[in-house]
């Protein structure tokens, strides 16, 4: 199991806690809690085939621009593909309301 910490610039704090997904094979869960404005911190616990480098690249695409809300995000993944990861992240962002 790999653990990875990432940090990105962000806007105002997320408005609520959000949970999406399930740690089934090929899937992941995402837990989001509001954080202080300006920073988003992401912790990833992953088993499976995606390298830490690819995880970083996938999340960079979504958060590097700094337009997302500030949050603490935790991801627990079990062999999820980048496609499934981005789908779950989109669901989570939808629920966070950004």
């Amino acid at each position, binding site marked *: *199991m790999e653990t990875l910490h990432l940090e990105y610039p962000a806007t105002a704090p997320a408005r609520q*806690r959000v*949970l999406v997904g*399930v*740690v*089934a094979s090929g*899937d992941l*869960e995402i*837990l989001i*809690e509001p954080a202080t404005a300006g920073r988003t911190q992401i912790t990833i*616990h*992953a*088993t*499976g085939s995606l390298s830490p480098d690819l995880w970083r690249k996938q999340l960079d695409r979504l958060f590097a621009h700094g337009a997302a809300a500030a949050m603490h995000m*935790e991801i*627990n*993944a*079990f062999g999820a593909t980048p496609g499934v990861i981005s789908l779950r992240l989109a669901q989570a962002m939808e629920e966070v309301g950004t």
Partner: protein
Amino acid sequence: MSHQQEIAHLLTRQSFIEQGARERARSLLDSGTFRELAGPFNRLYSPWLAAQDIATQADDGVIVAKGRLDGHAGVILAIEGGFQGGSLGEVGGAKLAGALEMAAEDNRRGNPTRAVILFETGGVRLQEANLGLAAIAEIHAAIVDLCRYQPVIGVIAGSVGCFGGMSIAAGLCSYLIMTREARLGLNGPQVIEQEAGIDEYDSHDRPFIWSLSGGAQRHTTGFADALLEDDAEQIRRQVMQFFAQGQPALPRQLRCRWYQQRLASVDTARQTDAHMVRAIFSHQKDQYE
């Protein structure tokens, strides 16, 4: 129902099997009353899976949801079949046992809390073996305790089914609801085949497996009290109806003499099949000792 009506029904009904554990709990509770306890943000990860490099889930695959059931205080315990096959380890097991213990305590204090268990489990999580087994014993203890005050209702919807020590928990429930896709059995097909050979049990023969442990057979032979379609609303209504009925006159687990009598009439010289089981258990008239 005409074929056209059936199609319209297929397109509109809310599947229960499709829902995750949290959604299932929500769909049974009175609207707007769902409140999760010891939830994912309490981050109750299994300490034992992480130590074995296995992916963990923040709720360890068990949801405890308080709320109202037809206006009465209630708690739903839902197992997430998608995480580790719904297997129970220390944390998930403690959530189930602990919540049932709290419900019994409520009743002792004059607050008649009800409980529904949504089974979707292969039983003990082998990576936490003895702590899973211990937790399941505590779940059994808590169901028996709570049954002294309130009916405890079990639902096995599928697609995992209910196996291992948790099938015993299902056997302790006051009422059991199943769908046709659900299975209920002590030992999983693979394990039986490994232990006893393919002639005894062919774990790849799905119709055979369902003919013995599927919802339809379990209902026909009296091991389940309701066989329902995969329809969240029908399941909700049936749960409420069983609560309204109160305790069963004579729970299955107390019918020792009847079951012993029926089993004594089994011809064990030949191997059994679904038909034979139905014949043995069709004598429902004398069920009350």
